[in-house]
């Protein structure tokens, strides 16, 4: 790391400017979450290196896997066999983690409701967008599915539930409504679309009051759903963040597993693929001897033996599209598009309807990106289906093969590493910077001028982010994500197709799709960050 070289006179000037700047600064109409990103675009030569590496490695993987590979299971190490693992996962510690998360949740809600309505002084927007949404997504992909543990809405419901039904046993309490099978996880998909809209398009997403109001409404929906259909059922089918963070944590190197088949028999989870992984419903009911907390290779959890359900596939594609759209809206291309559509007269003041039309343009952009991703993915799956259709062997002339949607449902999880890698690259320096804003805010969460821990005037150092380090890490992450995706795809192909030649043939369209997605991700980080001017 380079050494800081701030002359003392400059520091006092900057401190004064910082105070003046913060006092005078008006919240921008940036629809995205708190804080700005000051990333430099990745230079062209590095972008080309990354692209070339992705292409070269893909062909290398194809060559290595050409003779077929059968991977039935992955190596696992049970962390509970060691004292330290048992200590971290001790029931008392779990209660402490839940209580901490609940405490932060209550703090954020309170700050949003009664604190100063300035996103730079109130702890609510930064906590929700940067620490929770970006941070938990990051950690879920890199560490494991801990959201299931700390979900505050779940904690509140579970504790109230336990208090209320102390007299009766858990098994006797049946929820009044049954989850209809056709509904599956579609509510989670619909809610995710709404959430993505609120993150990327909604203009009030920085306002503490509005944000917290939406959070409370969502909690109410969650509690009503849990009461009506049962806590586990709702969490599995309707709770958006459980669905999204569980999906991301399939990439992670840890899992919880129940090895007691008697517990799983009473689970009622239609998605269970034979192995009980990350099912907290079973985990709660299992004995200590039937539980495992395993370390596993990265991305191993993205492999399945059966195709995923249609709503899960839809959620994955929507997640990928929104992550990409998040980056697209900061490119000069998008800024030019928005300005061209909104302000036909370049130097005229913004017309009164401009706010509404901006929302419409962004909403169209978001839905357009989601639709585009769907079409592209299904097109390539259709190509794979065509290529792998076995020649007719029977007299009747019926061809064997999978439909495009079945192929789509088998392979969709293999695209997730690219999205995770891009998300990492996009938000790395943002997180490093934004964590610093928490330091003064912890001493003064409501913006009332408190100084609880003495850090209220902490100086945020923008110089701690080294542009070169960020560039290399970003490109390396995206290339690594691409390689992981290609490897996973090959393993899935050998599970889906019996003939290794057919499996390799099926990978050509998939490789083109993945290369396209990776190039798009690299292109986005090579673009200079441009906020659509005037808005």
């Amino acid at each position, binding site marked *: 790391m380079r050494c*800081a*070289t*701030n002359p003392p006179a*400059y520091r006092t000037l*900057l401190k004064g*400017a910082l105070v*003046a*700047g*913060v*006092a*005078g*600064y*008006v*919240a*921008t*109409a940036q629809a995205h979450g708190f804080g*700005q990103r*000051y*990333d*430099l675009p990745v230079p062209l030569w590095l972008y080309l290196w990354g692209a070339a*590496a992705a292409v070269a*490695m893909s062909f290398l*993987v194809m060559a*290595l*896997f050409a*003779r*077929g*590979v*059968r*991977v*039935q*299971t992955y*190596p*696992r*190490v*049970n962390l509970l066999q060691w004292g330290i693992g048992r200590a971290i996962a001790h029931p008392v510690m779990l209660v402490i983690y839940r209580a901490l998360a609940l405490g932060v949740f209550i703090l954020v809600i309170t700050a949003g409701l009664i604190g100063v309505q300035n996103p730079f002084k109130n702890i609510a927007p930064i906590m929700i967008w940067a620490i929770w949404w970006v941070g938990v997504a990051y950690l879920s992909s890199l560490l494991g599915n801990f959201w299931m543990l700390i979900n505050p809405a779940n904690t509140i419901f579970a504790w109230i539930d336990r208090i209320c039904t102390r007299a009766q046993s858990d098994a006797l309490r049946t929820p009044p409504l049954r989850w209809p099978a056709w509904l599956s996880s579609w509510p989670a998909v619909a809610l995710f679309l709404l959430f993505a809209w609120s993150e990327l398009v909604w203009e009030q997403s920085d306002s503490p009051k509005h944000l917290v109001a939406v959070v409370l409404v969502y909690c109410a929906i969650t509690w009503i759903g849990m009461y009506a259909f049962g806590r586990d059922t709702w969490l599995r089918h309707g709770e958006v963040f459980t669905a999204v963070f569980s999906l991301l944590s399939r990439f992670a190197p840890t899992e919880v597993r129940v*090895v007691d088949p008697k517990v799983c028999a009473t689970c009622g989870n239609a998605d269970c693929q034979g192995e009980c992984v990350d099912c907290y419903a079973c985990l709660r009911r299992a004995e200590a001897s039937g539980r495992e907390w395993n370390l596993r290779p990265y991305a191993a959890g993205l492999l399945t033996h059966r195709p995923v359900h249609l709503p899960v596939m839809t959620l994955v594609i929507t997640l990928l599209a929104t992550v990409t759209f998040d980056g697209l809206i900061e490119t000069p291309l998008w800024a030019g598009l928005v300005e061209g559509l909104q302000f036909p007269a370049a*130097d005229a003041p*913004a017309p009164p309807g401009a706010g509404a039309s901006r929302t419409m343009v962004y909403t169209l952009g978001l839905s357009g990106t989601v639709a585009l991703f769907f079409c592209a993915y299904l097109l390539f799956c259709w190509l794979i289906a065509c290529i792998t259709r076995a020649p007719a062997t029977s007299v009747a002339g019926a061809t064997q093969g999978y439909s495009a949607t079945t192929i789509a449902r088998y392979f969709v999880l293999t695209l997730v590493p690219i999205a995770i890698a891009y998300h990492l690259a996009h938000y790395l320096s943002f997180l490093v910077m934004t964590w610093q804003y928490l330091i003064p805010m912890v001493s003064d969460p409501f913006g009332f001028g408190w100084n609880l821990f003495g850090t209220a005037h902490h100086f945020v*150092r*923008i*110089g701690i*982010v*080294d*542009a*070169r*380090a960020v560039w*290399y890490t970003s*490109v*390396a992450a995206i*290339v*690594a994500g691409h*390689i992981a995706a290609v*490897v996973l795809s090959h393993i899935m192909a050998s599970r889906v197709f019996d003939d290794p030649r057919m499996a390799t043939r099926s990978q050509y369209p998939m490789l083109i799709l993945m290369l396209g997605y990776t190039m798009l991700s690299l292109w986005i980080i090579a673009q*200079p*960050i*441009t*906020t659509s*001017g005037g*808005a």
Partner: protein
Amino acid sequence: MAHSLCTSTHQPRQTGATSDARSLQHRAWRCLGFCVAVIAAQYVLSHAFQLATASAQETRQAALHSYELRIEKGKLASSAKSLRAVEGEQLALRWVSDEPATVHLHGYDVELKLVPGVPGTMTLQAYATGRFPITLHGGGHAGQPGTRKERTLLYLEVHPR
């Protein structure tokens, strides 16, 4: 060696195809490790190169780079989209506006109030790399209710040495 630590409830049948697949897997992991090592080596080498040439560039650090920027009718007069500077340089941005305005450099958080026709200067040392927006608050009264819109004039790009 890793396998001795593994506890697996499913013992795969050790057929020739599976062990063949295992060796392929290991090769793939090794290739990946190699690529990561190459990229890491490149990073380390480039940093070493940078440190070696840092002394030669110390004289450049002390130099002052000044930029003349004119604001007309709430927009930048020139069509420049960004200013390019190098880490460590002393920068002086001289602003002139035809209307009262406040110019704000994000990141470094430097604000400058401008009176029509009177030039003002932002001086700073570019100690942090990045792409920082410079925005215009109209009316010279930053924080005035209703002035939700602030326009980005251009960007200051500070590139690593």
